């Protein structure tokens, strides 16, 4: 991987410091991002470690971070996380589907998410069931608060396209949530 690709370029100052600085600067965001996708603290750690490993393998002495680094890191983190999810998916997907089934039984009033916390958890679960590209955009915009231009850089999509995907993703989520929590009594959250 060349420097331009990784978003690092040659620089004079100590790369050792800059490497540590990069890890310090981005690890929290990447861990947060990865954790949303893989839904496991340790897996998220693995993902992020892999991302940095990739970065440092491509690291040449004297390199320093360029402005494209963030985009690259998010992209690689997303790909790594999605790979992890796919790799571990067999059991996990089954498990989640099972969980999804339980959520679908909400009509009985027993499995319904009651507290705001439960509903948040439910929406996150559903988010994980969206297409990776949708997850990626929703997370980048709503969690990481990246601008549309930055998201465009990470995903390689046009800003208009991103708006569409984001809307579709949110709408799908809204529909799934509506289906899963059939709570006619609940009014407080209708707005």
């Amino acid at each position, binding site marked *: 991987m060349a420097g331009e690709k990784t978003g690092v370029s040659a620089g004079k100052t100590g790369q050792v410091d800059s490497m540590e600085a990069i890890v310090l600067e981005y690890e929290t965001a990447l861990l947060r991002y990865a954790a949303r996708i893989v839904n496991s603290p340790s897996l998220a750690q693995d993902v992020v*470690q892999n991302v940095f490993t990739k970065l440092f393998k491509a*690291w040449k*002495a004297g390199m320093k971070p360029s402005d494209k680094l963030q985009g690259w890191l998010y992209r690689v983190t997303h790909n790594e996380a999605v790979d992890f999810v796919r790799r571990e998916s067999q059991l996990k997907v089954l498990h989640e589907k099972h969980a999804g089934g339980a959520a679908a039984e909400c009509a009985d009033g027993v499995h*319904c998410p009651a507290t705001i916390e439960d509903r948040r958890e439910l929406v996150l679960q559903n988010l994980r069931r969206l297409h990776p590209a949708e997850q990626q955009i929703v997370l980048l915009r709503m969690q990481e608060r990246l601008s549309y231009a930055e998201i465009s850089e990470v995903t390689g999509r046009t800003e208009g396209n991103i708006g569409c995907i984001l809307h579709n993703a949110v709408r799908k989520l809204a529909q799934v949530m509506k289906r899963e929590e059939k*709570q006619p009594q609940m009014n407080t959250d209708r707005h």
Partner: protein
Amino acid sequence: MNCKEVQEKLTVYLLGDITDADAISQIREHLEKCGGCRAVAQEIQPTLDLLHDALAVAPNVSARLSPERRASLMKMRPGKMDVVVEWVTKKHPRLARAAVILIIVSFCWVISGEVMWSFYGEKAGCDFGAQLARPSWLWGPFGFFRPTIEMSEVVEVDRSAPALARAPHGAPVSDGVPASSEPSRHGGFWAVTTRSGADLNPFDSYSGEIRKVKRVEEKPSVGLAAEPAAVPQRQRDATEKLEDTKEFQVAGIRPTVTGPTADDVLREKDKEIAIRDEKIADRDAQIKGLKMHFKALEIETRNAGTPPRTELTVQPPQPPAKPSAPAAEVPLTTVVAGHDSGEKEAPVAKIIAGAEYYKELPQAPAAVAPPADAPPADASAFRQRFSGTAGKLVHVQKNAQAQQGVEEGEAVDIVKSPVAVKGFSAGRTSSFRKPAPSADKIKVQAAQDKNGDGYAQNGPVQRKDEKAPGAGTYSRELKPGGGAGAPSGAVPAEESADGAEDSLKTADNRRSDGQLSLEAGAEANQERFENEGGRQTTTPSREDAYEWRMKLKSVDRIGKTDMPDKSAQKMKSQPKPEQAGEQRKAEEKLLTVASSVERVPESGRTIAKDAEKEALPVLKALQESAQRLQVKRPAEEDETGPRFKAEGVNPFVQVKANAFSTFAITVDTASFTLTRNYMVKGFLPPAEAVRTEEFVNFFDYAYRAPERETFKVYVEVAPSKFGFGLDMMKIGVKGKRIGREEQRRAVLTFLVDTSGSMDKPDRIGLVKKSLRMLVEKLNPHDLVAIVQYSSNARLVLDHTAASDKNKILGAIDALQCTGSTNLEDGMQKAYQVAARSFVSKGENRVLILSDGVANLGTMSAEDMLKNVEKYKNQGIYCSVFGVGMGSYDDTTLKTLANKGDGVYAFLDSEDEAKRIFVDDLAASLNTIAKDVKIQVEFNPARVEQYRQLGYESRQLKKEQFRDDTVDAGEVGSGQSVTALYELETAKNVIPVPRDIRNDARGYLAVVRVRYRNTDTGKVEEIERYVTDQDVVNSFDKASPRFKLAVCAAEFAEILRGSPFATGSEVKDVADVLRPVSLELSLDGRVQEFLRMAQSAQGMARGE
């Protein structure tokens, strides 16, 4: 913009990400017009908000990489050497190239040396071991010579080969050349290699003969070789010196001993060797010896020179065990060469150059060659020797009370008769806004009209000056004009006494003598209304609810629950002439009223026909109504009937009209206890006796007491179980706890009612028990005084320290009941006593224990209250504890406690007394805050309308919240207050971007608590926002305490006939409560509540 374009940008718009003002206004306009898009936006928004909130919560992952991972990553960073290498390669390519070339050249140098060595070495018969031992890389192609450099070891050479002596030694024995020799004690020779590379001319030494020498030396070393490392440095030095001389004395000179060390080492070796040697076969030795001997002889002869002038110290070896060898014969003292010289007498071999010497060696191999069956010891010795050299190479993380809405607002004076009430109420369907249940409720009512009473009168009957009040407040007041203002004045207290106990019997009698009592009741009722001007007001919007409520009471009271039936019973049992007359009058009046029903048309409609047809049922209903209303008035025959005041029920309020709900808090629980007492006796309590807030506050909601703040507000919102489509908001305000050491000194003045009415075990008996419990609980320095009052007040015990328990208990036991009730006198006396012992900063309090009625005294209730208030302002408070039933005057007692800033509780049992006097003592006596008011401001954007459950008598105006002169409730240490609101949340709001929305509709309501801190005397105010965080979207998932509060409120609402509880039955409450009681199985009050709800259910069915 069309729908498609808008929808594509909808999410982005809702996220507030569109910066273009035109685009934003276009989308907003479109959303206002297009229902479809709005629907989509409304569908998305909650999810978007949810997602937004969900993602705002950090995922369950540490913010940093784990240390191990970080460490492994950091290992990837280039080290210092890498930096140098990079610097060199990038900045100085030439240098790098030169270095590479240098490396290649050196590599070639070494390789070539190896190659050459191996080539020639092989030829020379040198084994690989020897080759490894030698730092050949230094020499490169000239590596042959090196062997000579390190050669300086002492080796013993076969004893039988004297001349050979100069051969071996050293490890790979290499090319060592014996520099000197001397016979060992085995008969062999010590030989030291003394060759230094410097001494040699590489080229000279390059000869085939050297190779031969190696071969020769290897062999004899086996079994004989000494450890190279064992050779003392000194020895080597000596050897070097010797080298310097370049002379080797070989024979004829007995070596000089130069150091003991060397000697010892050698001596040791000798011993070892000696032992090993013995194992060597004689024959071998002989053969070798002979051969070597001969070779040596040859060399000797050829180089016959001077013997080495060595100072090498060699201990004379012991005589060999096997003397068979020829050497045995040689004198042990002779030097190597001297072996021969024994005969030749010091043939001196002067070796000047290695070349010459090497030349001699070739012949030795043959002679020293080990025997084919050489012992293992020999092999290990061989390995040891190599390990010496090889070793060096080997080294690894909530109404305006409607202004009393009614205000008598035209307070529909229904006065005339209950009929009016009935007709009035039946005629209207309501415009009241209880959201969902109205349809159901009407049906239920219709069904009851037909079936329940057979009273199917529809349409308005009679109505007087009814006016539809704007404010939707429903209020009803049935109350005797004054405390003692009832038609008949004072009645001997003794008469009043038996009311309660006979009540059950009364109920049964009632059934058979129902008619009489009904009439009497009706008449009484009429009189009361006429004389007293009792009012009954209602607003149209509450009619159906009102009727339902009346019905509920008639149903409940007639048969079994009519509590004050004692009046009826009294009439029956001891009919007085005038009473009978009154009865007849009442009956006539009733009939008149009934007929008037036919005569009064209204609204162009008449119900005459209907009424005629159903005259009987109507009459029956009238009677029922009369009877029912009778319930609410004090029995004239018995002055001591319980008196309650109905406060009405708070209506729904539109948030847009009034977003503020302000009320003074109360921690009283008397209503619940009173109800419980009624129910224990088998009746449901009069509706006026039920106050929702006191029901709710009776229970413990387990709020955590704040540690520093005076109050903490807890809010929980969940769908209401009994109001379809409504949410219930439970607001809990918990006060801090004051530790015992912080408790103020209590100066208590007990004002005990000892009138004749008190002389019952459940009255004075309970009072005495309660006092005893309280005294036990007091701190020793607290003061207790007891004033008893009946016809007159008397000081029984002046203030005495609680530590003097016997004195206090004695005074308590001495209390005797007799006479009438002169509360006025009693209070004056008690306050005098209290004022006399006033302790500043202490808790000065007058505690009234009474069955609640005053029948003597000239002071009006108002004056009395003023008096209480006056003392309160001076710091003497008043708490009231009610006991017994019958003559109970709830209203007066409650007002007294309110004015006196004290607690109002009803003691119905020892348990309750214990709860109040023991468990809640600190709270009852230590007020942490006064004039506590709560104001709930609802957000119009999220709440359509609200209704507060209970607190009707405590409502304040919005402005009064911050008016600190307004008297409000007090809260004691660790006490909590719970308020419930029914909410209807707003719907169909056009979605707007989140950022704009946050401030406008982020919260449901704001709860503000304002109070005067008792400690500091300052007014403080706290507020808490109610957000979605406090919302639980399913009743089932709400906390058990929330469910308990909802059940307590609903039970109270049903008992007091609230229109909002229409359709609900106590059975429903019991059903909801059952699981809750299981969850809160340890809370005795909850269990008791469940039993009450279940028994109430049974009572209702009985009718």
